[in-house]
């Protein structure tokens, strides 16, 4: 096994949560829901998957993965549901509530790994390490690349198909583009569509967290996510909210982050340089989006 292949595989491993969380953001933004809470949803997904995996122990063998990932999906959706319900009932802006829920999720993880879920010796702030049967299978032997990456590709292609071909995807796009027209011209239940988008977005982010613990870390601990949920926003925006594009921008960011670690090791170039590049890209992406937005503003002002 060549070292290059291992490095490429590492980049793809790093890209996996970025792609799935990036899809979560793309779903939300396409549907007009500004879910900034992928980070929190990802973390509670990781918590739920960890709890189920530890609870199952060796009893289910490989099958443990199914309830573990399902638990991640449900937990992520439930976390997003809180923001959705706050918006539906009290018109709380989801931009605020989802960010706040991120902090709650971060501290929930801290609490759990020092409390109920801490490993039995109570020395390290983390859970027990998962047994090998509860780990996602590796798809390229000799590397760390696990099934989660393939799953990410499948979800991206499926999302793209849903948006382009299905009535559901069209309703989501219409609601995101113009809730008034969606309601008046399309007789679309905008409230229900928004709720669905919230839940779908949260579910995807939760799945990203579950895949991360069952595919990479094999345990829950603090700082499990180096801000995947936030980077995911940039991943989605740079891809223009196109699900297939998210795969490429996710791989790009994954490569950037793993490459930076290698640069630091080999050439003593600070890995924080990657963060600088990332941040510059995010600013560029937001600027492009703003110019586009202003463009449409100018158009509407002319009307």
């Amino acid at each position, binding site marked *: 096994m060549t070292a290059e292949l291992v490095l490429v595989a590492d980049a793809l491993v790093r890209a996996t949560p970025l792609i799935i969380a990036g899809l979560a953001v793309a779903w939300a933004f396409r549907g007009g829901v500004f879910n900034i809470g992928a980070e929190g949803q990802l973390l509670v997904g990781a918590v739920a998957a960890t709890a189920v995996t530890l609870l199952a122990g060796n009893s289910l063998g490989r099958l443990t993965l199914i309830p573990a990932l399902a638990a991640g999906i449900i937990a992520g959706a439930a976390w997003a549901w809180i923001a959705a319900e706050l918006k539906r009932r009290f018109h709380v802006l989801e931009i605020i509530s989802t960010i706040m829920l991120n902090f709650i999720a971060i501290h929930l993880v801290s609490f759990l790994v020092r409390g109920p879920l801490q490993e039995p010796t109570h020395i390290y702030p983390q859970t027990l390490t998962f047994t090998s049967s509860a780990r996602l299978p590796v798809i390229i032997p000799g590397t760390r690349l696990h099934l989660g990456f393939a799953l990410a590709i499948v979800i991206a292609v499926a999302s793209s198909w849903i948006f382009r*071909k*299905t*009535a*559901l995807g*069209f*309703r989501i*796009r*219409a609601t995101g*583009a*113009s809730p*008034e*027209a*969606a*309601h*008046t*011209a*399309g*007789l*679309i*239940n905008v409230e229900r569509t928004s709720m669905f988008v919230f839940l779908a977005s949260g579910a995807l982010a939760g799945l990203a967290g579950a895949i991360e613990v069952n595919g990479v870390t094999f345990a829950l601990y603090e700082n499990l996510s180096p801000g995947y949920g936030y980077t995911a926003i940039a991943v989605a925006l740079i891809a223009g909210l196109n699900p297939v594009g998210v795969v490429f921008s996710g791989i790009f960011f994954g490569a950037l982050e793993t490459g930076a670690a290698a640069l630091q090791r080999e050439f003593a170039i600070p890995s924080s340089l990657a963060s600088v590049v990332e941040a510059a890209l995010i600013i560029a992406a937001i600027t492009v989006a703003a110019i586009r937005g202003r463009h*449409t503003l100018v*158009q509407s002002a*002319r*009307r």
Partner: protein
Amino acid sequence: MSETPLALNDITRRFANTVALDSVSLAIHKGKITALLGENGAGKTTLMRIAFGMLQPDSGSISVDDRTVRFTSPADAIAAGIGMVHQQFSLIPAMTVAENVALTGRGQYSLVATKQRLSEIAGKTGLRLNPDAYVAELGSADRQKLEILRTLAHRARVLILDEPTAVLTARDTVELFAQLKSFAHEGGAVVLITHKLADAIEHADEVTVLRRGRSVLTAPMGTVDEPMLIEAMLGAAPPRPTLTAASNDLSRVVASLDHANISLEVRSGEIVGVAALDNAATPILRMLSRRRKVSGSAAMLPAKVGFVPENRRDEALIEDFNLTENVALAGAGSRSGTIDWTGVNDQAEEIISRYHVVASGPSASPASLSGGNQQRFVLGRELIDDPDLIVLENPTQGLDVNAEAFVHSQLRQARDRGAGVIFYSSDLDELIAVSDRVIVVTADGVQSVIPDKNEIGQALLGTRDS
């Protein structure tokens, strides 16, 4: 100083595809209160925004004291002695009266000087407010007073008020007009934008009526009476041939609605015209078209309803979508599974050719279409599957003559094939010309009226409009 502190000459202003003002002229005279009357959307506010420098005219000129000027911003207008009080107030609640007055001034802030100026104005016009009171504590009448004070503090000679009595009680209204009169008496000029006939008749010295962007009447108030103003506001019907008695026979009821104090039926083969002021008919039309829940009332509505909303840009079309996608939008709420895009594309092409939409093709953006073509497209989309009921809100607003005639012919065709058509229009001429019968919707309910402009006007504006 001239007798005409502000004059607007041949002002034309377009918004993309609609003509908001069509060479409108208006002269404001010193010492007079001029009422600018017109229905919603007639162009009153647009005209005054041009006078206040918020909008630029496409053609025409503004003169102050008989000298032609150019206002590039409200600051220019304020410097020329023009003040405007908008419908939405622009005050800072956390600041005091004096601070709010000083806020829009220039140079150094001096509380003493501001207070002095305020008491000066109070002496002249009777407009008096405690300069140290916080705006948050003021009621809406006092807030309006403050808005006026603020313009006068900047030495406005022409005061433009946009629907000033909308937020006032009857007593406050009387007080407001007393103050406006003393301001005029002191040599100022007032422009009163309103659609309340009673206010205008009682208090204005001169009147100009706008209808659909055109000035249709300018006269001293003493020389006109209420029926003349109603006619000018809502449209004078030229003599028309008697209506083709459409279907007073036993045609079936396609839709009926019993809601609160409203009860109405639409039958197949008839066009019902709805006259109403200030979107009073919107709830009914939205319920008939299934766009609003019919709560606690009995309704019989057909499964297929075509609906053309007044605001087609925001409500009928999605500009980020192409025409094909906008065709798919109709009925998107009840569709399931996958979308047959080839079929929808064919349908879009059919709409484009059958309804003579000038567009580059089904993949064109609706934003690239003119207003008339957008409306042809929307109408076509709503009509193409032969709905039993068609509901329309001001379907010809902002359209040119050809597009208007096209819309009318389509409505007649739909009626003739047996659909029920109900449409609201702010133009009485149109209602009378197109409808088989006319109903008037007011806060008191629905009443049937013979299609005659005076009857309709009376029912709309008569005694009910305070």
